[in-house]
């Protein structure tokens, strides 16, 4: 039998019972809609979170004091962690493939200008901090590139800090008290908005060495290091470890490459997307049971016709194929409807709630359709085999 005839003959029955086929296909359609909708939201969330993180650039390494390890006894003074110093950061500048190094200390302090006070986040950093944070200077300039030990008392304002304290005035050149010390304002940053709940505009930036002093900290909280995109991450990590080990005598620091962190985060988000997709899959399974039911009924109702087909020269295999393809067409068409519905609802959601990130990768759509076809096949196998194995004489006699 020609393939086109096989399909034409297979679809003649669902076409004859339109209402019943529609309802059966609907079961699969709802399942696919659920899968597409849930994975679209999951994947949208995935991309949203990753883009929040990766705006800082992927060739960043974060160096923090302390080593993550598990050991038995208290190791006393030998186990103590040496703080990361600004000198440590400076030493890393000269390693091969390193683009820039920026020390970082963060805290909270009171700002005072012209009788107004405000508590904001104070970030102590170096000249390269805007590159680390992927932000830009709007007015004036950022902290100058100078020897950290003799860094002058300059401050750069975040957009909101400027708005609150200066409200329309030009802040450049004025003196601002940060935690009681006098700083001269040399720049204002462009608005950046929130990143994972932190308002990046309600901040001020001062030199790292001065921030350490202000917060009375013995060392840096973090060193940001950027390496050349063409460099091999492992060899960069190795050279950092060696350089710091030489200075500290042991490995009492932790290196976290942004790329690795994103990878881990990405795989966690993948699992979440998969999990919500699997939840939708349960409704798909219910749709499959619907197809099984309708196909079992179809074989009983059309026993007579099966006998006739056999008398007219149909092989068992042909009867099997007719019913298998009928089941598959039902679920494939239901699946297509579900794809359209799921995609439509996902886009509609995005229209009405722009904050809800939605993304439907075509691979998911293709996979969902394949799963629908697979479910149709699986549901069709048992009824189709029963149809093929009917005794033609008995089948013809059935009314």
């Amino acid at each position, binding site marked *: *039998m020609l393939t086109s005839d096989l399909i034409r003959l297979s679809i003649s029955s669902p076409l004859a019972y339109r209402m019943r086929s529609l309802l059966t296909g609907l079961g699969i359609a709802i399942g696919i809609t659920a899968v597409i909708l849930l994975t679209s939201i999951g994947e949208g969330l995935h991309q949203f979170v990753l883009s929040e993180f990766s705006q800082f650039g992927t060739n960043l390494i974060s160096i923090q004091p302390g080593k993550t390890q598990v050991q038995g006894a208290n190791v006393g003074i030998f186990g103590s962690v040496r703080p990361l110093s600004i000198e440590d950061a400076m030493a890393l500048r000269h390693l091969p493939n390193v683009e820039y190094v920026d020390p970082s200390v963060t805290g909270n302090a009171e700002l005072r200008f012209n009788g107004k006070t405000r508590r904001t986040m104070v970030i102590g950093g170096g000249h390269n901090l805007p590159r680390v944070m992927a932000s830009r200077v709007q007015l004036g300039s950022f902290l100058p590139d100078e020897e950290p030990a003799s860094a002058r008392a300059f401050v750069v304002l975040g957009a909101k800090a400027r708005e609150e304290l200066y409200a329309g005035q030009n802040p450049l050149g004025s003196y601002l008290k940060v935690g009681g010390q006098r700083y001269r304002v040399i720049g204002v940053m462009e608005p950046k908005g929130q990143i994972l709940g932190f308002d990046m505009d309600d901040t001020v930036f001062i030199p790292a060495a001065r921030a350490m002093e202000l917060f009375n900290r013995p060392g840096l909280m973090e060193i940001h290091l950027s390496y050349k995109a063409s460099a091999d991450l492992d060899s960069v990590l190795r050279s950092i470890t060696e350089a710091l080990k030489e200075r500290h005598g042991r490995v009492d620091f932790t290196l976290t490459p942004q790329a690795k962190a994103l990878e881990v985060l990405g795989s966690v988000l993948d699992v979440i997307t998969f999990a919500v997709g699997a939840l939708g899959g349960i409704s798909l399974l219910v749709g499959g049971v619907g197809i099984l039911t309708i196909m079992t009924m179809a074989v009983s109702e059309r026993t007579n*016709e099966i006998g006739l087909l*056999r*008398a*007219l*020269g149909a*092989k068992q295999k*042909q009867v099997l194929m007719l019913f298998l393809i009928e089941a598959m067409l039902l679920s494939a068409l239901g699946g297509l409807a579900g794809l359209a519905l799921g995609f439509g609802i996902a886009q509609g959601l995005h229209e009405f709630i722009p904050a809800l990130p939605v993304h439907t990768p075509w691979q998911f759509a293709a996979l969902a359709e394949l799963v629908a076809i697979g479910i149709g096949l699986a549901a069709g196998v048992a009824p189709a085999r029963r149809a093929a194995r009917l005794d033609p*004489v008995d089948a013809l006699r059935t009314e």
Partner: protein
Amino acid sequence: MISLEHVTRNFAVGDLEVSALRDINLTIAAGDYVSIMGPSGSGKSTLLNLIGLLDRPSSGIYRLDGRDVTSLDDEEQAKVRSEKIGFVFQSFHLVPRLTASMNIELPLILAGIPPDDRKARVEELLQDYGLADRTDHRPDQLSGGQRQRVAIARATSMHPAVLLADEPTGNLDQATGREVIGLLEKLTEQHVALILVTHDPMIGSRAKRQLHMVDGQIVSQT
């Protein structure tokens, strides 16, 4: 062309073994017109199903065109049915959701004949059986006589050597029945062997050869 040697067919009914056919010996040549008569349960339909390769003998040998078809597997039997045998049933057995022309086309579709060849053949059959204006009608839009004409057209679409008709007039009034018998008899002129099961002696007596069956045996032949 058809030869049955010592053919028996037994059915298991509970613990009992029931013989539907006992030691049947029969030869039928091309173009023969044979009627099989007898009371119900005499084995007429079983014999017909056996000749139509829908059933297998419990013992004995069935040769069709000199070839032993007793032990063919399902696929080969289906091929022989497709190429050599046509069926006409009492209750027409048309597929209700397909049009008259699609019903006639069904054996050709199953045999994998290309659409262009099929179209010409179906066209011709619709003309021959006076169904040209009923092409796109579904079975429930046709009269009994038209339905049986569609069934006969379908049975002959593959040019079978044997036509098996099981009470073809059973669901028709007398006039229509006579008309249908006339169509079937015409086929014997084209060297089709016609085997007709009936319990209407009026119809059965028209055949050149008449078999009477009782209890699974052929008791008389004329």
